[in-house]
């Protein structure tokens, strides 16, 4: 029997926020969503669009999946049966259909936004950062409020790393350092940024 956490956050929200943004950063420390990271950080405009789209989809999927897990799949739900083994398949379907829906809506109502965001949306459905955040929300047993905060902060953490790395890689590409362009440059840039985060938060305790 899984006890349903409440709707209003009872946790301390500040550590959750800082953890998701820095100490447990999705890209640098947890290694989630690396495909988009190495693929899209060659240019800061692309990484900006992708970061916005990911932050939005992460927050929305946290809002959608939490009630479905606790009110439909868990054995304390209205169905009174334990369907939690279906969580992965449910979450991936929810995320994929939500992404598809958002794509339709944006294309219809805001063509400029679709131009800047739309091409990244299909990539997000199979981005492990999004599925990771909803699975972690369940695993950590967060309340509804805290899970939304966590997802949003994780999105912000994803965004700043994307932008920081894009800045480093753009410089490397402009200087025409042939050996370090491409994936190798992305990983060396990631090493540097990750070292900064890890060493800073090993000294400054929260």
């Amino acid at each position, binding site marked *: 029997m899984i006890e349903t956490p409440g709707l209003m956050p009872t946790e301390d929200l500040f550590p959750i926020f800082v953890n998701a943004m820095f100490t447990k950063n999705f890209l640098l420390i947890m290694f989630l969503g690396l495909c988009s990271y190495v693929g899209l950080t060659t240019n800061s405009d692309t990484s900006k669009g992708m970061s916005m789209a990911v932050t939005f989809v992460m927050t929305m999927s946290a809002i959608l999946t939490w009630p479905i897990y606790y009110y439909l799949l868990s054995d304390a739900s209205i169905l009174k049966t334990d369907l939690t083994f279906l969580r992965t398949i449910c979450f991936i379907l929810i995320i994929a259909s939500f992404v598809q829906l958002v794509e339709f809506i944006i294309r219809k109502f805001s063509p400029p936004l679709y131009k800047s965001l739309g091409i990244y949306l299909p990539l997000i459905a199979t981005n492990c950062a999004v599925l990771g955040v909803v699975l972690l929300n369940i695993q950590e047993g967060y309340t509804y409020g805290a899970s939304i905060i966590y997802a949003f902060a994780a999105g912000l953490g994803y965004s700043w790393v994307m932008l920081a790395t894009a800045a480093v890689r753009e410089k490397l590409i402009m200087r025409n350092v042939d050996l370090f362009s491409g*994936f190798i440059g992305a990983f060396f840039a990631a090493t540097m940024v990750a070292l900064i985060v890890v060493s800073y938060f090993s000294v400054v305790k929260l």
Partner: protein
Amino acid sequence: MAKKSFVGEIIRGIIKDNPVFVLVLGLCPVLAVSTSFANALGMAMAFTFVMLGSNIFVSLLRKQIPPGVRIPIFILIICTFVTMIDMMLEAFLPPMYEALGIFVPLIVVNCIVIGRAEAFANRNPVLPSIADGIGISIGFAAALMLLGSIREILGTGALKLMMLWSKDGELGFYPLSDIPGFSFVPNPIEFSIEPATVMVTPPGAFLTIAALMLLFKIMGDRKRMKQLKKEGYEI
């Protein structure tokens, strides 16, 4: 598509289409669980199960799957196998389940598995698909275990070789020296180097894969240079 031998398909998956170093796909589990040799081995086994299962089923159903909705169907097939291995790990190997954590369910969105379903299994009969699955899995496992061993050696100064084995009816990961026939293998294998703890932390993962990719790139460039010189080009 040219007819290839079963073994040829396997070798292509390991070297020419190595998922990690050549295709640069599915990096998340590679970097995250390569903290030690044992974790890398556990992840590689879970991955192999899903990869083979999905390749076989996609290939069997390839004439029935409507092209318009093929990706969601692939994801459903993959998800079935992921849920199976997730439950099996939880039941039979709880320590490994704890260590791999969220990365077992995340095999669903692993680009390699979806990529092979789309690019290979959906277009080929069952037998080549099995070969492709085996090859890609071995390539993935090799990359994962190479990374895991390097990080464990540099980070702790020793390497613990583990193997899936059942001892006294308890299934689990045991040191290689406990397994009959392998007792000559020292455990752990000691290396006389100063351990650098940074290698087992996340930045170490990025550093190791960057260094390995750089090494492979330099080696590839050298080979190409030699090839060009042999053909009579001036460089």
